[in-house]
């Protein structure tokens, strides 16, 4: 095996700058996915049937089709649907966020259902309104249980974000690919990109463990 990084090292800063783009996409997608995921999960456990159907339908669409297809639909479909071409960046975080919301809503729903129903009764018996009960009593306990699953989703999101290459967003993956094309050596830049993703995921994993430990304080 002949590895030669010398022709790639000048482009290293260029590849690393992609981290910024990747992180932005992931962070916005995670926020969108989490916010929408909570709303969808509340729809799913609601006693109002149409809300159940709506949320289940949403989930089935976004879980039932490939992520890369959703990305392309949003990016290439936007001129026909909205009459404007949206930026690759917008298309990226929108599609990842909307996709992630489907998975996160399932995770949160399971987390809410796993909270002892006595907690709800205790809150209700104290006269606590539904909304406050959810935000102050049920969701914090649900979050604690589902943190590992949420971390998993974040990790998946970080790695899957590499498919934005396909709509030409300059993330880590695409930059590595461009450097490969310019230097006629693909192996080394893509190895570097792999290492960058790995380090990002490791940092996420450690951060997740720290948060989890903090949340387990009350045990």
């Amino acid at each position, binding site marked *: 095996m002949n590895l030669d990084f010398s022709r790639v090292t000048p482009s290293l800063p260029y590849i690393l700058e992609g981290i910024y783009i990747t992180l932005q996409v992931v962070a916005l997608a995670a926020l969108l996915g989490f916010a929408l995921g909570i709303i969808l999960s509340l729809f799913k456990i609601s006693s109002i049937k149409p809300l159940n159907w709506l949320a289940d339908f949403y989930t089935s669409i976004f879980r039932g089709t490939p992520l890369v297809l959703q990305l392309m639909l949003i990016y290439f479909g936007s001129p026909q649907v909205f009459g404007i071409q949206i930026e690759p960046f917008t298309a990226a975080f929108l599609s990842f966020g909307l996709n992630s919301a489907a998975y996160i809503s399932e995770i949160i729903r399971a987390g809410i259902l796993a909270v002892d129903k006595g907690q709800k009764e205790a809150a209700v*018996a*104290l006269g606590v*309104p539904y909304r406050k009960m959810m935000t102050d009593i049920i969701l914090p306990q649900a979050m604690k249980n589902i943190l590992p699953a949420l971390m998993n989703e974040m990790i998946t999101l970080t790695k899957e974000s590499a498919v934005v290459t396909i709509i030409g967003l300059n993330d880590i993956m695409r930059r590595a690919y461009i450097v490969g094309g310019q230097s006629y050596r693909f192996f080394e830049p893509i190895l570097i990109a792999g290492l960058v993703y790995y380090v990002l995921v490791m940092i996420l994993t450690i951060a997740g463990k720290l948060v989890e430990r903090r949340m387990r304080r009350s045990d």
Partner: protein
Amino acid sequence: MIKIDNLHKNFEKLEVLKGINTGIKEGEVVAIIGPSGSGKSTLLRCINLLEQPTEGSIWINGEEITSKKTNILKVRAKVGMVFQHFHLFPHKTVLQNLTYAPIKVKGLTKKEAEGKGRDLLQRVGLAEKADEYPSRLSGGQKQRVAIARALAMDPEVMLFDEPTSALDPEMVKEVLEVMKSLAHTGMTMAIVTHEMGFAREVADRVLFLDGGQLVEDAKPSEFFSSPKTQRAKDFLEKIL
């Protein structure tokens, strides 16, 4: 203070309460006893609408809480409830358990609620546990905190659903002591219990339920020494 009129409760096809008529006077301590499945807990849970009655009505202080116009949350804020399994909020400290509802429901300031919370903890003998999490407490301590949590809302009546049934035997007494002292302050109380000694000593009245019906309603001294019905006799024979 509480009036219960022709109360029915069905779960699907199962008829749990078959027309209960009774009442609780202000300051009265009522023990609700009976075999398991007799509807004791359901009766109690109807009083703060944790269960919606299928038929019949309940009044608290002249207000019909079973009416559709009633604000259920307001009713519940006035009725304290203590559960068999405590149901403390595990992610909140003992003091936060006591201050949460007063702040969020009654609109007390944090300072007011904490002052009051600490007083109540003192009263149930757990002042030094204020900043612990519930997981660090014994069962008896948890139940005393749960009682304090309910009292923090200044309820007009306290409901106890088998408050000592989930406790180790050596912890039953500390909880009963707290309840006894609460009864002495003139609190109106309804207690579903299997502690016959406690019912006999503290209660003003005993309601004996069997098969979803109120079979006897008597003073403890009368009920325990000379029950009128055969069903009550059989029940007492089995447990005493």
